[in-house]
């Protein structure tokens, strides 16, 4: 395997007087899922926002395939090969499902072949194809989440960032999302997954970093998923 697709070194994020992330370092290689777990306010989402260029980075380095992303605009970062599935999905409710997908093409580096790309995401999420003429706002929460992931995938990113993709979803839909993540890993993408569902994330990811107060406290492997004591201890460390 070649080097990491995404490399974060000594990342500091500060909102005014509040230090959200302190000296965080992590890497994600192609075909890997790396989890970021921790309590609310631990700095998980801030890390993703910093990578996407929408949070104030005050220190450290973020690199994609060895090229620095620090200080770049969100659209430049998206067009470099990083796609974010934001918390709360943030789909465009007044646009159709297909128009939401077409927006995802804005982050593509190449041109042409959009139809084949759409078909490849329809394989993962048949629902998106079924409802492509509907307004996205008319979809259920789970369907919107699938659309948000599909929209990110049509950009053909090297790195996929997911911010709490299972938030507010029914357990059956959570299963669909995690199955899709496994399939996405098979396609060779580097996935950085922020989640509240610690056990599920630790089980699905190649490794999971536990954040507290913006700092990396512990790294867990899939073998730790059933160790409840260790998981609880990690949260309250």
């Amino acid at each position: 395997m070649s080097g990491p697709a995404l490399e974060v070194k000594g990342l500091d994020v500060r909102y005014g007087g509040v230090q959200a992330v302190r000296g965080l370092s992590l890497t994600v290689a192609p075909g890997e899922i790396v989890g970021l777990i921790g309590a609310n306010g631990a700095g998980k989402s801030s890390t993703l926002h910093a990578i996407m260029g929408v949070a104030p980075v005050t220190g450290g380095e973020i690199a994609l395939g060895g090229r620095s992303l620090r200080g770049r605009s969100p659209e430049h970062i998206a067009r470099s090969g990083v796609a974010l599935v934001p918390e709360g999905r943030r789909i465009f409710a007044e646009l159709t499902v297909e128009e939401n997908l077409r927006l995802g093409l804005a982050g593509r580096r190449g041109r042409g072949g959009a139809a084949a790309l759409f078909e490849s995401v329809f394989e993962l999420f048949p629902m998106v194809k079924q409802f492509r003429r509907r307004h996205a706002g008319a979809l259920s929460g789970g369907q919107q989440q699938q659309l948000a992931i599909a929209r990110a995938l049509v950009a053909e990113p090297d790195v996929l960032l997911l911010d709490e993709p299972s938030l507010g979803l029914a357990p059956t839909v959570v299963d669909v999302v995690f199955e899709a993540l496994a399939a996405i890993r098979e396609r060779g993408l580097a996935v950085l997954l922020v989640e509240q569902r610690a056990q599920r994330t630790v089980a699905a990811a190649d490794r999971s970093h536990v954040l507290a107060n913006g700092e990396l406290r512990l790294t867990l492997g899939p073998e730790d998923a059933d160790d409840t004591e260790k998981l609880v201890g990690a949260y309250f460390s």
Partner: protein
Amino acid sequence: MLAVWNIDWQTLVDAVAQGAIYALMAVGIGLVFGVLRLVNFAYGQLVMAGAFALALASQWGWPNWAGILLCFAAVLALSLLEDRLVFRPLRGHSPAVMLVATFAVAFLLQSVALLWFGPLGKIASSLAYLNRPVTVSGVDIRKITIVAIVAVAICLVLLFVLLERTTIGLHMRAASMDFETARMLGVRADRVITFAVVVSGLLAAVVAVMLTVQTPLVTPDFALRDTIVVLAGVVVGGMNRPIPATLGGFAIGFADGLLGGALPTNQSQYLPSFLFAAVILVLLVRPRGLFTFGKTVERV
């Protein structure tokens, strides 16, 4: 009913034309507001600049097509300058800062026009023949009224096609709904904003041509009253989406034209009072806007 209000068919058609022109101004203001969340108070001065370009072309004896081309070039050049020198550098600042900046641009352009052309202004007479009437079913209608309604209809259809059928239109719609998410998907902020400014400028040039025919005397405060009325209309309609903003612009232009025709000549000075009283009433009843349904956005 029309007779009761002292409104004849000619007044009604003129009111539709005025509503159409104001609708176009409202779209121009709404497009920039959509992507920047900013009301461009200098919009009227862009129209004024286009009108002066037409007046100069008329003075130099240029053919009409050349005058119209000069008008479009002047308005587009100023729009792009405004984008480069004001909107782009200040984009990251608070909406209040940008708002004050557009006030500054408006006063600057007006002052430049005052210095160059004087307070008495210039006459743009080459298209004045469009004020001659044609008789349709016994009703005298000025040619410019028909031209304005047709031109606005064509502009709105083209704009609809642009927004609904093209990639840049899709990006503009997405940006007006949630710019941050659009940018995180790869939508280029500078490109979308520049495009909105250019389209908005093109519409201002169309408005300049039509208003200049209706009012050939071009002074530094040309289109100022129209812009203030349209801004009220945009707020009344709902400025967070193009269609409510357009309907608001049309509604206030139509009401302005109708009231102007209905009021006796010796009471016409009360027209703005009636108009803005109606605006206040509408906003008290529907603060989100007359044609807006759903959640509101910050207004500046």
